[in-house]
């Protein structure tokens, strides 16, 4: 597996430095090296450059900075609107003395974004060499497979270089590489081993793991600094850190509490339970009628419309569950998710579940739209608000039960699924 980094065209020490920087990527790097020459390049994030114009200008201006000749004044900003312009300007740039005999690289990060931009971008970049008739390499970086990126027509197949996931061993190696100067490498490696044991199942993101390692290390060292254990006393250290890491997984990893709050907790040596996380405040206080509107919305979303008679008309007669409904309505509505309902049905249910008589004032209607802005109800489909709008209820059963409890409304009795 471990191929050492070697390439005839490059000086040995430079390669060694590179190898240090990019652990466990030797084979990929050497392959890339064999393709690349020196590196006049433009690195562009396609998330950041969300229009083609920004993309072009970013690339051109970046390349311009490699041109040192006095012909072009450095400060002049190149603007570029279309792909043909881009090709023209690119050719001009390339023809300069500094870039003439070199390969120019354009690296497009998060290339999957290109699919959502103009249709000619992806095929255009794929054929850039052909169009500009220049020595240019375009590299797409993406997290999805090429087949999903594949445009329909007119493109060259790129050379696909696959970066496999880091294995656990590799992660261990990378993470333990940069250890703090106060502690020995073995000590830190042992720590990383424990950390990976907890987090490897949920997280493989190197950056995130690095971050977690950094913010929890102080706790790991605590017994050593206090003199309760030596660096080699692995078992004791493990016992100390393991529950701590598990709470970290439930709190700071999910961003329930922020990293800085987490660190503060460690310094003050308190339990994480004392600090309430983001999810602790799930309770939402609503005006009285809004609660009933939301309940009505929930009932309308999860009950078949045909059953409304049964729930909201006083003398409805007996309707048996099995005979009465079509087959597809027999499946649990809560498994199928909320269904859209018209405004009229919402109001009809609302008026039948609220005890007092209320006039249909503007206050009631505006509460419906408030619920929509709060994302508790969602407007479905067309934008035509005037003509019988349809809504869906976007809250969970637990949430609505909590709301119903505050107005002492027996929700379950009105839900078809729980009959």
């Amino acid at each position: 597996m471990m191929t050492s980094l070697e390439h005839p065209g490059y000086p040995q020490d430079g390669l060694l430095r590179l190898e240090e920087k990019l652990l466990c990527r030797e084979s990929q790097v050497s392959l890339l090296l064999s393709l690349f020459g020196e590196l006049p390049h433009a690195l562009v994030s396609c998330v950041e450059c969300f229009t083609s114009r920004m993309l072009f200008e970013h690339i051109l201006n970046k390349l311009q900075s490699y041109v040192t000749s006095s012909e072009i004044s450095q400060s002049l900003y190149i603007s570029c609107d279309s792909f043909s312009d881009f090709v023209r300007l690119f050719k001009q740039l390339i023809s300069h003395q500094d870039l003439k005999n070199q390969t120019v690289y354009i690296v497009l990060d998060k290339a999957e974004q290109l699919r959502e931009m103009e249709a000619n971008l992806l095929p255009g970049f794929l054929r850039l060499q052909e169009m500009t008739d220049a020595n240019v390499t375009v590299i797409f970086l993406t997290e999805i497979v090429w087949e999903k990126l594949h445009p329909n027509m007119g493109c060259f197949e790129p050379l696909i270089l696959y970066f496999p996931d880091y294995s656990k061993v590799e992660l261990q190696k990378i993470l333990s590489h940069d250890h703090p100067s106060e502690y020995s490498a073995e000590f830190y490696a042992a720590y990383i081993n424990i950390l990976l044991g907890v987090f490897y199942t949920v997280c493989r993101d190197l950056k995130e793991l690095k971050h977690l390692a950094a913010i929890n290390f102080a706790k790991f060292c605590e017994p050593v600094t206090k003199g309760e254990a030596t660096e080699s006393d692995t078992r004791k250290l493990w016992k100390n850190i393991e529950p701590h890491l598990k709470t970290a997984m439930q709190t700071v990893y999910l961003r329930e509490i922020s990293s800085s709050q987490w660190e503060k907790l460690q310094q003050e040596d308190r339990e994480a339970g004392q600090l309430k996380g983001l999810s602790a405040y799930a309770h939402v206080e609503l005006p009285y009628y809004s609660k009933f509107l939301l309940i009505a919305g929930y009932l309308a979303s999860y009950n078949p419309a045909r059953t409304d008679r049964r729930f909201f008309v006083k003398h409805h007669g007996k309707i048996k569950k099995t005979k009465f409904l079509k087959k597809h309505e027999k499946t649990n509505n809560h498994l199928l998710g909320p269904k859209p309902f018209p405004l009229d049905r919402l109001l009809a249910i609302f008026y039948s579940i609220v005890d007092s008589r209320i006039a249909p004032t503007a206050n009631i209607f505006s509460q419906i739209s408030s619920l929509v802005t709060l994302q508790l109800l969602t407007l479905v489909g067309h934008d035509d608000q005037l003509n019988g709008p349809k809504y869906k209820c976007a809250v969970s059963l637990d949430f609505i039960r909590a709301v119903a409890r505050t107005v002492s409304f027996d929700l379950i009795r009105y839900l078809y699924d729980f009959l």
Partner: protein
Amino acid sequence: MTTESVSKGCFVFKPSTKKKKMTFTAADYFGEHVKDSKDSKVRFETYQTLWQQMKSEAEKIQEDLNRKVFDSLLEFIRKSHSNLLEKMDEWRHRMRATEIPAAALVLGVNVPDHAMTFQILSEQLRESVTPYVVSLEAKECQGVKHILQKVFGQLLGHSIRLEADDETDVQPHPAELRQKKMLCSLASLADWYTSVKRKTVSVMPGKKRSSPTAGHLQTPPVVIIFKDLESFHAKVLQDFIVICSQYVNQLPFTLIFGIATSSMTIHKTLPHSVSSLLCIELFQSVSCTEHLAAVIDKLVLTHSFPFRLNGKMLQVLITVFLYHDFSVRNFIKGLQLCIVEHFYSQPLSILCCSLDEAENRTKNLTHEKCEMIRQLPSFMRYVENQEPEKQVELLTSDTFLKKEIKTLLRHLHNYHENYIPVLRCLHALTTSLPKFPLGKQIRELHSACLERNVWESEEYTSAFQLLRMMAKDELVAALQKCCDVLKTSRVKQQADTLTKVEEFIDQLQKLDKIVEDETVAQKSLQKKTDLYQLQKTLLEMKDSRKSKKLSKFETLRLEVLDFIDSIVRMHLKPPEVMPLYEVVYFSGASTLRKHLNAAPRIALHTALNNPYYYLENEALKSEAGTISNSAPDICIAYKLHLECGRLINLCDWLEAFATVVAAASGVDPESDLVAGQVDETIHARFIRAVSELEFLGFVKPTKQKTDHVARLTWGGC
């Protein structure tokens, strides 16, 4: 117009500036229907000064309430980046990911109030932390592009303003403007930030006058406020955060998410890959009910403002708050409406001002005003209870009346001064009772007192029953609270009450010794081991307790409660018993309800069903249920459509319409209808009426059946 020109042509004439447009100010509208315009002007001014005071008070309340959460938020923003910058070289900070500091500010569902909160927040930020504050609203940010444009606009706009202030560079920086026009990318923003930073650092030392940047940090963070997180497109927000995280080292971003529902929204909108870029801390603002309580406490339950609400009005305002919107801002607006309406509709409101001022104004009352006062129901009741001679004097002599008014106004004022501390005392005593018979909030007790004699209500009796069972330390604690309340009021009568209450507390505490003696007696009882003996003594004790007079504590307790009851009866009378209460109490509940609870459907139905109601044209008067043929076409069409089911046959509708209309014009309808032909004008009128109804949202075309329209409303209205 004439010109001196000899040639033909077009000439532009600017309107002469002399002719002033008649613009109405609010004050002019105030006196519209009143003959006595000077009087109405005074009333308007009184209203304005009163409202200004109340408004500034309300603002102060909000500021005070928000102070705590704002202080911690500002502290967080101040620290967020300086922490990172200081320890840049440490191993730990090298290893950890650079997260964007973010504050989740949970504000509650009262969205109308948020605008004010954010305004104060950004002002405070600008003042003390950073000049770079951007606030974004979801409806302006449909895409990342729009967000960036907004950010650019607000940041660069600000810096241009700053430069203009400094007069070092009055012309807006050409490069900056060009950037603004050309492309709004964060790369250029980062360049801008570094250039600005360099500039301020170089300018700082030589500065003489205190600049607004005095309290700012060396590298002021760029604060971006998302006012309504729920409404933002998830994708847009995610992209923006991803972009920001790439620049966070050059541009110290800090995000503030304004959240209306709950902090869970963050997890709903942002996937882990994005939320792991943030360092989120939670800040919870004061709940709206707390805010309302504070507002009522400072604006309604105080005698510093002469204007008062009666029970019904308060009920209407609180109902709107609790049942509909939770918005304190709307509550205050409603209060303002009450005040305007009071000063507008009640001519005697001229006396609704501070006591001294009112006495002054009483002197200048005209004869008509005096007559008005004589006709006030409360005053008439008062007169009836007077001696016959005095009655005559009151009804005939204006000067005597004015004198009397002065004393009555003083009484009213004293009543208010006493009312509030006693109310607070009663509240302090009853809040700790189980099940809150007199209400948990003081506002409930207040409206109960406003409506009738509170001591006659069942709740009051049950509350006092519970109070009579109160344990000693509870009672002492409650009385202590009363003392605190009474100490704050400076009315003379209350000083007496205070000394009395303090005496009671003293006596209660002295009881301790006596109680101890009793327990000693009980302890001696425990020594006896003989079962028979024990039973006997217990029985004896039981008997003695039954027959025994109340213990000292119990008698004292009764005494205390009787005292409280007496002061309640004395001071918590409903305002209606006070003569001249109409001057300061606003009582147009129906007007207020009409203004606050707009009912568009009902209004529309009334307009179409009974056009006379709005048009007031005698010809349109008709009995209920009939269709007047002289009504506007749309009314006829509307009434006919009320009789139909969910689908309406257009042809039948047209025929019915033609029949009604033809009856109006006096043409024999049969002659036309026999031929199956309808007059073209009538046809056109019908089509217009139907399309108007469609525009109003009553019917819509349907594909279910040809020649039919669907009815969109149900029920009567």
